[in-house]
């Protein structure tokens, strides 16, 4: 009985890991190591890599900058319909990428909801890097939100109370207490979101199109490569997986430390203050 259960757990874990890792391994087995870095040679790949990095960085920064305070508010305020809001925030998760793309067009496109207003301002989003940024932000932000709200909810309320009785303004409470204490959770959420954003494909191609050096991200490049040269496509994919893995590892293992330390140093009190 005992042995049975132990075996059961072990098997389940083995199956799960095998299932998740086998396909990834398979890709590598398909790719001659030469191609792997050969892929980097491709102008297409390099351009795409740059676009991906640039757009992900901007999108992620935006998500952090806006998402963090928003998550803080949603985590601390208790208002009616809060549950609904929290659910709505996760809605984009359900959308098939194509639908997400259409949705973005319907909202920010030339003939979209805000098309007129944006036009008036002389802003045109579709087919620009701005569009890529929006698409990436749209698909990744729900992931960050989830994690960030949870992280802020986990911050011990009495520490906040303590800060207030010590005369700290809400802003100070946020910067000096909530943020540093939530840093761990925020870091993890940020990693997850960034990862998801990097892999974004469907929404981008519909909302931003695909133009080398402008809106063609790595996933788009991979896709267009399939049509031409399957092996290069695989090589780029493998490359992509490596990048992703490195990203996850760094962010997960060291990210939150950095994250935390930033705030500590940045907002650490000085007796003179």
């Amino acid at each position: 009985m005992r042995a049975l259960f132990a075996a059961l757990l072990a098997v389940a874990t083995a199956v799960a890991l095998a299932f998740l890792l086998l396909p990834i391994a398979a890709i590598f087995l398909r790719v001659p190591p030469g191609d792997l870095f050969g892929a980097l040679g491709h102008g297409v790949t390099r351009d795409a890599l740059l676009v991906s990095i640039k757009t992900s960085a901007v999108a992620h920064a935006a998500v952090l900058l806006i998402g963090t305070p928003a998550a803080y508010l949603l985590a601390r305020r208790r208002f009616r319909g809060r549950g609904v809001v929290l659910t709505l925030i996760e809605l984009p998760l359900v959308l098939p990428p194509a639908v997400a793309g259409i949705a973005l067009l319907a909202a920010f496109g030339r003939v979209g909801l805000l098309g007129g207003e944006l036009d008036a301002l002389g802003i045109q989003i579709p087919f620009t890097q701005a569009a890529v940024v929006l698409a990436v932000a749209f698909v990744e932000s729900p992931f960050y939100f989830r994690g960030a709200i949870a992280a802020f909810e986990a911050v011990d309320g009495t520490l906040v109370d303590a800060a207030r009785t010590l005369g700290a303004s809400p802003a100070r409470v946020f910067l000096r207490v909530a943020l540093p204490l939530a840093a761990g959770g925020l870091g993890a959420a940020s990693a997850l979101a960034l990862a998801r954003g990097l892999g974004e494909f469907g929404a981008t191609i519909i909302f931003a199109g695909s133009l080398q050096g402008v809106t063609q991200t790595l996933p788009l490049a991979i896709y267009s490569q399939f049509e031409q040269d399957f092996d290069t496509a695989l090589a780029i994919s493998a490359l992509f997986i490596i990048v992703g893995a490195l990203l996850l590892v760094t962010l997960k293992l060291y990210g939150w430390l950095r994250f935390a330390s930033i705030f500590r140093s940045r907002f650490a009190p000085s007796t003179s203050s």
Partner: protein
Amino acid sequence: MASLRVDLSLPLRAFDLELALEAGPETVALVGPSGAGKTSALRAIAGLARPARGTVECGGDVWFDSERRIDRRPEERSVGFVFQEYALFPHLSVEQNVTFGGGRADGLLRRLRIEHLARAKPSELSGGERQRVALARALAREPRVLLLDEPMAALDPHTRGKVRAELHDLLRELALPAILVTHDFEDAAALADRVGVLVDGRLRQLGAPAELLGSPADPFVAEFAGANVLDGIAESGPVGLTRFHLDAEHVVYSTDEARGRAALVVYPWDVSLARLAADDSALNHLRGEIVSLVQVGNRVRVRLPFLTAEITAASAQRLALRPGETVVASFKATQARLLPAD
């Protein structure tokens, strides 16, 4: 000299907290069982909980007044709050904790003998040290009122004694209105000028420790103060005495007046033990088997079916008491107070 005046009603889950008290530059302790509303009271004073109605004033200015729609934010009230588990900021050093609200740390750290810990993180401190840091932090902004929520609860009794003494001296020096929450009557007696017993959100009694010991307002307070509380029926007895029936066969007498259901209160140290009942009319006798003997300091607590007696180790020796033996517990009718049953 600032004084704190509180008169508020705060709705809690199970009941409303009704608190009215005024404190000069003195320490007032709030004691009571868990869930009585002690912490809630402090939170209301600090502005962390909003009373349904009432007022909170400190010296001249009004912190809260439901009628005048005044409700100063916690950060605008000048209170020093020491939280139940200290609530130190785990990510900040001791010094950063203390100076969080502004002000300088070194003086306080020296005074509380923790200057050598200035750079340490709270997680590296012992319970006693944490408590001092919490105190220093609460005092750093020179608050006009000090609120302490079970400052000793998190300490092991070994450090507890020391810390209690230090805290006592500190409170005396500061001479501010200080509200100290505890559920330990001894802590309260040791630290406070006046003690309030809070039960289910109501102040049962508020007075000097000796007062509560001497004339407890109700059985609960008496029990809290360490007395034996026996339930029974009171009826008029011989000349100015009240006859009190514990049960069918056991009867005792009290000089207090009472009729019907009542509670008889007698302190363990007013109960003497003997092998045989000395025949003395004014004395109450209860015969019973010794359940347990516990030495505390130079005294021994002897637990009997009805009550507990506390006698000197010396006389316990002399009587050579053992668990299971039958003894007679005696106490004067004048020391048997009668209170209306809860």
